[in-house]
């Protein structure tokens, strides 16, 4: 059975082309829930509600999750609560952004 860490690792290859960081290090992936049958739900957010790449990014995340061996089907749930803020990003991302 696939693990949460494997799904996070696969999603970490998805980069936001605007900011240049991957979604995991940005802190945009909140949780991954894997069911017994191999289906999983990725709960994530975006840095802004007005993101014009909303659906595209969600699609990339779905594809990345489904690449993991043992995952049958992935569902991506984009939520706005809790709202993303820069403190959720990894330390090196904050440093790179000048924070």
């Amino acid at each position, binding site marked *: 059975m696939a693990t949460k860490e494997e799904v996070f690792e696969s999603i970490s*290859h*998805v*980069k936001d*082309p*605007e*900011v*240049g960081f991957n979604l995991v290090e940005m802190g945009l992936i909140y949780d991954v829930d894997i069911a017994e049958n191999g289906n999983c739900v990725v709960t994530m957010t975006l*840095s*802004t*509600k*007005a*993101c*014009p*790449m*909303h*659906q*595209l990014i969600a699609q*990339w995340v779905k*594809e*990345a999750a489904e690449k993991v061996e043992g995952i049958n089907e992935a569902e991506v749930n984009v939520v*706005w609560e809790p*709202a*993303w*803020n*820069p403190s959720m*990003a990894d330390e090196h991302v*904050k440093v*790179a*952004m*000048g*924070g």
Partner: protein
Amino acid sequence: MNISQEFAPPYKLVIPYFIVGVVFYLVSIMYTFGFDVSQLHYQDPAVLAWVHLYLLGFVMMIIFGAMAQLLPVVLEVGHFGVEFFYVIWPLLAVGTFLMMGGFVFVPALLPYGGTVVLISMLIFIFDIFMTLRNVKEFNLSVTTVLLANISLLMGIIIGIVMALAYAGQIDVNISALLVAHIYLVVGGYIIISIMGLSMILLPMFGLSHGYVNNAVKIAVSLMSISVILVLFSVILSIELIAYIGYGLSVIAIIAYLMQIQTIYQKRARKIQDIYSYSMILSYTFLLLSVLFGLVFFFMDIQKFLYLSVWLLLIGFFSFMISGHLYKIVPFLVWFEKFADLVGKEKVPMLVDMVPDRATYMQLGFVLIGIIISSLGILFSNNELFKAGVSFLFMGAVFFMYAVIYILKFESK
């Protein structure tokens, strides 16, 4: 909340607005070589021709293109008739050239040019209003779109009346209507549109979080009231009402600048780039424009009014637009050429698609050009003004080069 990508208009529909807009920018900068700043007058047909060339051909063209692209994001619904945008830009371009011809050569052309522009804008406004009918939640951005387009509609109707009077077909007081026309189109449409769009774009590109929007709400409200007051002052011929309107619009812009400062302070992306530098310069010139406007108001020296308008148009609007095009055009090209390749091969980041050197050359030349040409206006010195325009022209060439570079970008 579901902002669908399928609402986005096709690439080939939006891109012409930005290409044609940049061409108009270059042409309008070249046109200013012919200005005689020692004889500058706001009713000089050559000045009126330039203002329309710049505002319609460049500023409005880019705003319409940006609205075509961003409206689905702002309103969270698709356009009522996205195909309308295929005819809006050609009509706007042709109408603008006819109007120029009307101002400079044959006044009888003016109503025809004005009518073509009117048709183009009526199509745009029709799409906006019909699209707004599907909006479920009226937030600040939606409200600004509504207010701005009501202003635009009224502004162009007054503009057509003025064009008919200019061509000698009807007899009205053009000078009185001019103030209402300017306030409705520039204050009511362009400024309120910028206020609304910037509340989406600035936090998005700067990753700003944890701030309140109160200042911009005050700014939009006061700007709307000021436009109404100026309009009523023309209708009722009561000058005092107009002065209250002018005062409110100054307070509105100061409130807006305070909001921008808050967003800037709350941004997570503190690394400066061509976008952030362009925004800083743009808002600095807006502030300077207001200050020179106040100097004109209290000292009644005409050249300070011209300086204020020059800084608003060439400083605030041009840096606002160039900075945003360095973000929007790469996104459109990336989405068209590379989005489908994600996960299959290495794709460029948006920042890789922007030619750094050309964009900073553009920024530098335009900045120096604005400073020198402004001194030319201030001292009524044509040599100084033309020297400044030479720098602006070089800036426009680099601007065009940068946009073409982005459009033709291929992954290495």
